[in-house]
């Protein structure tokens, strides 16, 4: 993130700034763009969530009219999924994958530039729908037909276009990552020697290029149903609204793993570093991730148990979904075994990684409960589900990203993170994340449906707690922004190795990482002496 004037054509002021950031093909600069973009979207999506939680503080409609509430719910989901979590992971991949496999850059640098710069356009289009007549999309991020087809607002067409754009961005990004990993590993590094973060991203890239086109198909069918006389999702013309759900969730379930697998990789990098012990069961970690990815394609039906599915299909999806618990369990056990008899210290990245493991596991437990079809009839579409997926997404995907930022920011910026501030952020975030989302289990079990703007008195206490928690959680993330900026601007200089027992190629280059690294492939495996020099 330090300016490298020698590489930039000699221009001044705005022109120089624009040509640097608009035209850059450097993986580190593009990585930073992705991360800052995701950060911005995280705050916009968060602001929408604040609106939701403000309205839900007490029964009655105080602030937000029901129609606008549905727009907030929809846009919060879309922006967080496609604007915050996914670009943040792609940003981390851009920065770290070349550094971790000893590549000079991504394999397709211009494509990399293109796939980033699609995103601001996609989200400008999506966000502009708030200002259109009829308002923003209001059918939930799942855009079930016929609410989004026959009954969708005019802005639905902009939503379709926006989703297409972000889909193109994701697929191009995924192709780039796959090509980079397959072709640019430093000579000698086999696939089974790659760092786990690279492995999980490779698998995620496969999920992306197979799942995103299905989403593109779904939005295209919505578009043609709306304007070109088709009836894919309308029984009037021989179609079926449930077909939409099958297509959407055939994309949607792999998408769930797209948003968590890189987090698994991050935890698998950080925990060994601070336990000062090699990752336990490297091979089984890889195999578990691959099996999760395969299973993610045969469980989509568990989102649809209440649609009147035949018994045989319910049983199939229930058994397959339960099976996912096995490889996921293996991963959790391996992380615990990595910590076991290590010699641990608890710097901020380690704290976030441990919180990731614990809270993600809690989200996994409620996922297992949701898999049981009879019980699902009671949980389905209640706040129990909201609690479940926020536990895997917030302390899962987002804490995972934060752990990664705390872990690698010294390498990127050349400055250590101030541990006092980092720990303050951690402890406030973990308090408020639980205060926000844990009570949602209870309101769901008590019978509160999701996506409602107003609720009866029996749900009041839990909603009050959740809303207080959410306000605190929102403020906490302003603290995170402050810490990131503070670290970029200054702080204790980071050593090349940054963390005492960090392992991997990224720690053999200087801190801050120069704009161009590994122009000649580094030797592999890293020699013992070199690793020790880095520590000194």
């Amino acid at each position: 993130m330090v300016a490298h004037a020698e590489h930039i054509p000699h221009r001044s002021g705005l022109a120089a700034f624009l040509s640097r950031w608009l035209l850059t093909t450097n993986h580190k600069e593009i990585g930073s763009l992705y991360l800052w973009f995701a950060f911005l979207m995280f705050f916009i999506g968060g602001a929408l969530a604040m609106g939701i939680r403000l309205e839900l503080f007490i029964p009655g409609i105080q602030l937000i009219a029901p129609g606008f509430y549905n727009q907030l719910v929809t846009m919060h989901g879309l922006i967080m999924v496609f604007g915050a979590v996914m670009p943040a992971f792609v940003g981390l991949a851009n920065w770290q994958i070349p550094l971790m496999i000893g590549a000079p850059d991504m394999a397709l640098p211009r494509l990399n530039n293109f796939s980033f710069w699609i995103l601001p356009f996609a989200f400008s289009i999506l966000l502009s729908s708030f200002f259109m007549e009829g308002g923003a999309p209001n059918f939930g991020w799942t855009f079930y037909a016929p609410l989004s087809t026959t009954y969708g607002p005019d802005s639905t067409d902009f939503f379709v276009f926006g989703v297409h754009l972000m889909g193109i961005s994701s697929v191009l990004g995924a192709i780039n990552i796959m090509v980079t990993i397959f072709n640019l590993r430093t000579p000698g590094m086999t696939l089974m020697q790659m760092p786990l973060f690279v492995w999980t991203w490779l698998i995620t890239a496969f999920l992306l290029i197979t799942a995103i086109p299905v989403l593109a198909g779904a939005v295209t069918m919505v578009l043609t149903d709306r304007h070109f006389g088709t009836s894919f999702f309308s029984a009037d013309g021989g179609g079926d609204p449930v077909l939409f759900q099958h297509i959407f969730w055939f994309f949607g379930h792999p998408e769930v793993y797209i948003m968590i697998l890189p987090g698994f990789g991050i935890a698998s990098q950080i925990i060994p570093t601070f336990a000062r012990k090699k990752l336990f069961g490297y091979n089984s970690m890889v195999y578990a991730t691959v099996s999760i990815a395969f299973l993610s394609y045969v469980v989509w039906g568990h989102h649809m148990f209440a649609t009147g599915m035949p018994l045989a299909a319910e049983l199939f999806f229930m058994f397959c979904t339960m099976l996912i618990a096995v490889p996921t369990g293996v991963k959790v056990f391996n992380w615990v075994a990595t910590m076991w008899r290590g010699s641990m210290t608890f710097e901020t990245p380690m704290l976030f990684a441990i919180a990731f493991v614990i809270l993600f596991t809690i989200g996994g437990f409620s996922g297992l409960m949701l898999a049981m079809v009879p019980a699902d009839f009671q949980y389905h579409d209640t706040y129990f589900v909201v609690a479940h997926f926020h536990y895997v997404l917030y302390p899962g995907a987002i804490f995972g990203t934060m752990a990664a930022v705390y872990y690698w920011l010294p390498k990127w910026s050349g400055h250590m993170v101030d541990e006092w501030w980092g720990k303050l952020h951690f402890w406030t975030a973990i308090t408020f994340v639980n205060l926000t989302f844990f009570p949602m289990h209870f309101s769901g079990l008590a019978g509160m449906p999701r996506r409602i703007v107003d609720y009866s008195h029996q749900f009041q206490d839990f909603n009050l707690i959740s809303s207080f928690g959410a306000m605190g959680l929102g403020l906490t993330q302003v603290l995170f922004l402050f810490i990131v900026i503070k670290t970029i601007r200054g702080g204790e200089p980071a050593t090349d190795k940054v963390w005492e027992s960090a392992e991997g190629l990224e720690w053999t280059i200087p801190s801050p990482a120069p704009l161009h690294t590994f122009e000649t492939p580094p030797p592999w495996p890293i020699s013992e002496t070199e690793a020790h020099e880095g520590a000194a």
Partner: protein
Amino acid sequence: MISSTSRHARGLCTLLLLIVPQVVFAVELDMREGVTAMSQDIHWLHTVMLWVCIVIGIIVFGAMGYTIVAHRRSKHPEPANFHEHLGVEIVWTLIPVLILAVLAYPAAKMLSEIEDNSDAALTVLITGSQWKWHYQYLEHDIGFYSNLSTPREQINSCGGWLLADTFCELPDGDSAAGKAERDANEHYLLEVDNPLVLPSNRKVRFLTASNDVIHSWWVPDFAVKQDAIPGFINEAWTNVPKTGTYRGQCTELCGKDHAFMPVVVEVRTEDEFDQWIEDQRIAKELASGQAVADREKTWTLAELKSIGEGVYLANCATCHQPNGAGQGTTYPALDGGEIAIGPMAAHIDRVMNGKAGTEMQSWAPQLSDRDIAAVITYERNAWSNQPDDNIVQPLTIFEYR
């Protein structure tokens, strides 16, 4: 409360008042057990699952907690060197498989019972539409709509807690009174004008369908949740052993007023139910006699307007607003609106048939001739509307049908 109470004690009392409500709900932490055999079986399955998760959680998080305490660098400076163990890995792959297999069996068995819709004594067709339920007793040729009965004043009032009243630019007047009524209303948002009435101890089959978007009919105490999908019919069933009133809600996002689509079921004894069916049949005959009388009569403007206002507030105001101002282009203003001051025929057509692809639905099957005539007459005379042909008689509506 006592005159000598110091400021600190009063502060403490306030704090207690804030905390106590949150302690009292302790009984509400778990899934509702419900009243049917099915809901209680499901509650059992839920409890088993919960305990399996809690035990696994205690073991895994316990191990983590132990290692965090015991294997920190200050206590355990030299890390061990192991990083794989085939035996252990096989064991902790197989044990979850076994646990899951044991859990899958009762779940599968329960599921096959839930899906057995045979031998029902009564069939109710439940049709969802934005935002109400239509119940039809197929064996008895009886049907009625079930609408939220909580007054709008209670929903749209802020009453100044936490957020200033200035945020509340709502058309319904006295917000403090509305809030007091809301707080006093035990069944706020979970009450309807016409509940579904069912007999106890009889197997009742539900068929669910929809007129517009997907809805989902849910009564937690029966553990029945079934999507209502336009163009398709789904099945579910229940058998309620206990009389009483049971409440639920629509659980699939269905548009603007998704939160305001409650389900209320009154379960009566078999005798009372049979009597109720008989009463409904008589009431239906009386109503059709009344409908004949209504259309033979020539109504005055004042009569129709006063009936029409009630019909308007109950059915139309949620979108078009009580003052006829509408909400943006999605819900057009009726005050000075194209339809409301335009030709009468177009107005009747819009109310009777609705507008395809919008939330403006066909009211012909939902309202009587008199009510439709009244609401049209009201709309053409309310607010600033003063078109030339400002009154329509129930007979005209009858002939239109």
